[in-house]
């Protein structure tokens, strides 16, 4: 009988105990997986904003179409600039009011300055955009330049915060997983004390006695992580199907689920922690 078969035999007899343990581990992992989901999406957003080098050049009030076209021509000739689009005051008003906000419709025309929407090449460096921005700001026809760099910075800060929070959460979750699996294995060992006693009496080595329990601990940790990720995936699918449009508008991109690499790491961590918990709790208790 292999160690796996022995682990299966033991686990099958105590399946309620194991199910409870897997559920508890899953609850802990749901927290961590949710945090990871948020971080992954903030990171996606940040990457998109950082890459999409663009700027809005707001023109001063009263600048005529001819002057605007001149600036547009000059911008097109600037190296690194991919595209320039003129958005008139009326268009700007229509874009916003079109979103259905009546309050915006009441605002005067000055509230919607005409602008030139500049797009920089993807491979252009950050200072290309910054350089263009400073040059443009000095022109009397230009009211202000918005490069959105501050948003990228804010997202990066948010991301760093999210990563730190997730790391702290991970420590708590790992602690919870270890204590849940350790106490389950301790209980399983108690319930199978006769079996363990017999094994030791007929000359089983400590390793032989321990291995099925370690396998059971690893299985609990890994299945807990799998259950957590499955639950989160179901929740994610429901949210997505109900709020697809709104979500995309809100965060400016299609949300994404955890990548396979993150899932694999989580399941691996679950298994590893479970095995570690089982091993250490047995080391203290298994002395004959």
């Amino acid at each position: 009988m292999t160690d796996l078969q022995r682990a299966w035999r033991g686990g099958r007899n105590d399946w309620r105990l194991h199910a409870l343990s897997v559920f508890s581990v899953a609850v802990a992992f749901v927290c961590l997986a949710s945090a990871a989901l948020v971080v992954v999406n903030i990171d996606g957003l940040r990457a998109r904003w950082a890459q999409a080098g663009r700027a809005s050049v707001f023109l001063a009030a009263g600048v005529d179409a001819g002057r605007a076209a001149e600036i547009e021509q000059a911008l097109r000739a600037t190296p690194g600039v991919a595209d320039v689009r003129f958005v008139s005051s009326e268009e700007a008003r229509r874009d916003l009011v079109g979103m259905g906000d009546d309050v915006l419709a009441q605002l005067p025309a000055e509230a919607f300055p005409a602008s030139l929407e500049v797009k920089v090449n993807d491979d252009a460096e950050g200072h290309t955009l910054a350089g263009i921005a400073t040059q443009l700001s000095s022109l009397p026809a230009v009211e202000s330049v918005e490069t959105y760099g501050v948003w990228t910075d804010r997202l990066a800060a948010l991301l760093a915060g999210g990563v730190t929070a997730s790391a702290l959460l991970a420590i708590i979750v790992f602690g919870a997983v270890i204590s849940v699996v350790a106490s389950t294995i301790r209980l399983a060992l108690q319930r199978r004390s006769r079996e363990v006693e017999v094994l030791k009496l007929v000359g089983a080595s400590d390793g032989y006695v321990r291995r099925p329990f370690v396998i059971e601990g690893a299985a609990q940790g890994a299945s807990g992580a799998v259950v957590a990720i499955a639950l989160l995936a179901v929740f994610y699918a429901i949210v997505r199907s109900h709020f697809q449009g709104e979500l995309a508008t809100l965060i400016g991109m299609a949300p994404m689920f955890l990548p396979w690499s993150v899932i694999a790491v989580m399941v691996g961590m679950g298994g590893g922690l479970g095995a570690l918990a089982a091993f250490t709790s047995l080391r203290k208790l298994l002395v004959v």
Partner: protein
Amino acid sequence: MQPGQRTDAFRPVLRGEGNRFDPTARAKPILVFENVHKAYRADAPVLRGMNLEIERGEFVFFTGPSGAGKSTLLRILYAAELVDEGRILFMGRDIGRLTSTSIPFLRRNIGIVFQDFKLVPNWSVLENVAVPLEVLGLPQRLIRSRVGEVLERVGLAGRGPDLAGTLSGGEQQRVAVARAIVGEPALVLADEPTGNLDPQLAVDILGLFEDINDTGVTVIFATHDRSLLDIRPRRVVVLDEGKAHDVPHGLDEVAEADEDSGDQPGVAVRDVA
């Protein structure tokens, strides 16, 4: 072995094909107790300078009142307890000097039967009996055939698939005996194996151990049940005041030995059946 040297593996001498490792072992006693002392508490020593030799293939009763130290002695033999002083040579090796990693190898040479059977109740009879062979990692086919043979020997042929917990006391003890001998150990220890059984079943189980002994296995049978000692003349060792005394047979000698303080261990007549 040199003094101070510790064995890492208990090499099974005289198992299976016999004297592969130590040609002289066959002629030596299988067990030698030399001045063995053991106390759980300093003020209440259990063994106080016990000496005893047991030959290969002997059947020996260990008897004495409850608390005399019979169980302690057996526990020392399978290295669940350490002696405080003295040594115990099992097939020439000092049990007290075994490292924790070599204790399993010692136990694979000893079959043990307890008063409370120590079966796993939610395992089948087959699984219970197979454990010592599973631990050795033998192939499943060999395990099945060996377990089948042993179950037949203890009169439980066909009961293999039953759950051990559903068997009667006498049957459970037979399963325990089967488990003790399935690995073909050189020594079988029985600690009050009939203690939980009614008298007729007790005699049956004793007969089972005698059958095992007939195949050349050394058997130590610890019991405080004097009625079992008289069934057939056998070597009887009485544990008393922390020492072991041989008595020829039966109750009368035990009573006399208790009174006669000049009793010399080893001079008593041994079973020559």
